[in-house]
């Protein structure tokens, strides 16, 4: 019997080695697998490369991992947040490397890793600093930049419901990067708020097919307000 359910976030991340590349889902707080990030903090792996849209908020989650100096490199599209003080401080001190990736390139590079694409030409960032040193090409009168996949050792993602095979559904915009990241890692670990019997999820509405998930942990539902950007 296939059973990907593990008892705790601690057990789910026990084998993360130093130097691992880790995808972390979420867009700000929505869909961020904060319980897995907390378990990763406890677990102790160092010298990590994190790939996530933001570089942490406040003093918890990714921000706490960064504050603990466990992150060598951050790949993200939008590190600057009203409360990204831990990243800001280490970045200014030169203690954390930043690869700034436009958000769509981030999503597409992760997708490419999951989809077996070797590289792709994207119009995004052509003619900007971000494209400096990268291969470019004109195709049918438009200019493109060649971008490469982002493969990872682990993906930490947050979903709403799952089954023991690893099928997942998400909730509203908490979906964001999670389904894409699930495809691009050697080991995808998902948290869910509910584990249902095999066959309960409608095959038509499964968002992440079971093949992409290796470990599944049930966690309680806690509502966490999110820091909004100032308008």
């Amino acid at each position: 019997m296939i059973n990907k359910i593990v008892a705790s976030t601690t057990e789910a991340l026990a084998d993360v080695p130093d130097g691992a590349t880790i995808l972390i889902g979420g867009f700000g707080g929505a869909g961020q697998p904060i319980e897995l990030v907390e378990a990763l903090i406890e677990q102790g792996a160092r010298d990590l490369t994190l790939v996530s849209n933001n570089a942490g908020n406040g003093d918890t989650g990714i921000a706490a991992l960064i504050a603990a100096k466990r992150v060598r490199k951050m790949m993200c599209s939008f590190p600057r947040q009203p409360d990204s003080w831990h990243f800001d401080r280490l970045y200014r001190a030169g203690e954390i490397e930043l690869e700034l990736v436009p958000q769509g390139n981030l999503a597409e590079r992760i997708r490419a890793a999951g989809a077996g694409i070797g590289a792709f030409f994207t119009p995004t960032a052509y003619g900007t600093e971000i494209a400096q040193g990268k291969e470019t090409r004109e195709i049918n009168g438009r200019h493109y930049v060649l971008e490469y996949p982002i493969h990872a050792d682990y993906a930490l993602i947050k979903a709403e419901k799952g089954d023991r095979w690893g099928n997942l559904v998400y909730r509203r915009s908490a979906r964001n990067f999670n389904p894409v990241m699930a495809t691009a890692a050697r080991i995808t670990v998902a948290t869910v708020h509910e584990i249902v019997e095999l066959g309960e999820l409608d095959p038509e509405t499964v968002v992440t097919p079971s093949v992409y998930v290796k470990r599944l942990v049930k966690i309680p539902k806690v509502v966490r307000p999110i820091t909004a950007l100032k308008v």
Partner: protein
Amino acid sequence: MEQTKTQLREAVMPAAELKWTRAQMAARLASDVQEGTIMNLGVGLPTLVGNHLPKDREILIQVENGILGAGPNAPKGEEDWDLVNAGKQAIQLLPGASLFHHADSFAMMRGGHVDICVIGAYQVALNGDLANWSTGEPGAIPAIGGAMDLAAGAKELWVLMEHSTKSGESKLVERCSYPLTGLACVTRIYSDLAVIALKDGRATVLDIVPGMSFAELQKRTAVPLAQADG
């Protein structure tokens, strides 16, 4: 009934000050959005446009984190933090909305399926170049988000920004001095002083804040302006 632009102007324009407020800028832009438009609103000032869209037109807001058909902000106390916009504010969905993941969302944007993107800017050049992600200051934390993808993918890029910097320099310039977000992508500027179309290296004034002359607008603008026909 739809308000005419003149009615809108009279209704919202304070007599004394020769510039549109932030709410008026957003309303002025919103009044130009046609039925059936697919729009993306950038973080910050552009988000305000959502509050001013004509109620009698069906306009679909696309949000980068996987939403088409976003509605207004959630009432205080009823926030669902699993449903947020690009600025991480809790929002609602319109009937007819759909949800999808980030790669599908940016495929939608990059693939030219968004009609209009409204975005803020540090500078816009006469040729449509956009600079909005970095002032290049040492020590500044850079952040791009979805801006470069939208600059490359939206059919029309409308910039919503103050006409001048705090120190009074024109933000519409011959050539951007700040790092670029995209090349030749801006098609229109909605500032606190005017609405300006950019096309083929020409800046054509479509509207001016009431009471300001074309000559005065030109004086405050670092590139030559043309008057719209008729």
